[in-house]
């Protein structure tokens, strides 16, 4: 099991000359969990994208370490699983094809056919594996995003609005995933929901400075 740490110092993000958030700092070492809260438009999703290396910073720095060795974000992305309303899968492919594409990209086809079945079964989509994703409901797409995010067994799981579009059964599945992730890895949740925010040991609020 890899020991993972993420250290953020004075993170600030400006957009069109106006500040979204500024001077956000935190440090996480596995096992750890962090919730990012704040009003609509406060920058929760932006911060979660910055942590995942999908957006650049205006000021500040963020460092990623695996087993004490600092690595760049492109290498660290292999350790990240990300679920977000902004991260879509391919509607023209089936659920199985989407996950196979991810496996091929990560060059882990051999080991992953069993893992794909495990993940699709976990999120309750194994029976719909050959259906085109474009025909899925928003809740089913959200479940598939979890399978996609967890396929490579990531050490860091970032969830932006983790239970959006999910039914009660789906939320129970996500709760199990979160409990498992918190045991030994890093979990980051961006949410407006107080109950979801309290799933995490640490909390930061954006948009209050």
């Amino acid at each position, binding site marked *: 099991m890899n020991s993972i740490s993420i250290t953020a110092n004075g993170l600030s993000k400006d957009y069109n000359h106006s500040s979204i958030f500024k001077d956000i700092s935190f440090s996480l070492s596995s096992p750890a969990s962090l919730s990012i809260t704040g009003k609509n438009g406060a920058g929760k999703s932006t911060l979660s*994208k910055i942590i*995942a290396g999908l957006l*650049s910073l205006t000021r500040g720095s963020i460092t990623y370490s695996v087993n004490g060795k600092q690595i760049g974000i492109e290498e660290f992305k292999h350790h990240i699983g990300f679920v*977000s309303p902004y991260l879509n899968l*391919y509607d023209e*492919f089936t659920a199985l094809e989407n996950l196979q594409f991810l496996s*091929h990209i990560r060059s882990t086809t051999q080991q992953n056919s069993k893992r794909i079945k495990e993940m699709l079964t976990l999120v309750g989509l194994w029976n719909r594996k050959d259906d085109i994703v474009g025909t899925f409901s928003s809740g089913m797409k959200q479940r598939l995003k979890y399978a996609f995010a967890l396929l490579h067994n990531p050490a860091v799981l970032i969830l932006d609005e983790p239970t959006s579009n999910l039914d009660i059964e789906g939320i129970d599945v996500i709760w199990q995933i979160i409990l498992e992730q918190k045991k030994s890895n890093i979990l980051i949740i961006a949410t407006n929901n107080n109950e979801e925010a309290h799933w995490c040991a640490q909390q930061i609020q954006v948009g209050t400075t």
Partner: protein
Amino acid sequence: MNIITSTLAIVSKDVRSELRTRYAMNALLMFVVTSVATILFALREDEVSTEVLSGMFWVVVFFTAMSGLSRIFVSEEERGTTMTLQLIASPSIVYFGKLIFNCGLTLVLSSAVTILYIAVFPAFVIKSMGIFILTIFLGSLGFAAAATIIAAIIAKANTKGTLYPVLSFPILIPLLMTVMKSTARALDGEMFIAAMSEFQILVSYLMIMIAGSYLLFDYVWKE
């Protein structure tokens, strides 16, 4: 992560996606047919020089490519899958995957235009096959290399449709002039050695475009 396997996974995904959605293919084929038909009606029985024929050949390829090749990145933006790709693959893998796909598409497009030209223009007779095939091959790759990086740039812009040909034209001028001259040589039946300077320009253009795009792509791809 194996770079070649990952790059081929992107290519394979794009090929299968294109076969299912026909995002680019239908638009390209319709453009080829309508533009060749328009030229045919305009020329009627007129006898035109090989320079004019080769010029019109590449005008069709240019505008058809401009109408279809941008889809490679624009479709990812429209479907909201850009971020998915940014998360799971490094920029270089995405760039080379998209480049290979666009090269294939442009080669298919150039071949289709060639077949159509041979079928409808009696004056379009290829007398130096070696020059013609190498021109089509290098010209198509050059088109694809320039179109891929410009497509990546304009996918982030709001005025995607109009910006693409405007940005592409100045970059493609050296390529267009060279392939037109080389194609005219092929139609005139000149010796292979006579087109060597054009081939050198085309190879240099291709190498510069790929190297420059590779260095630039990181900044274009990341927001």
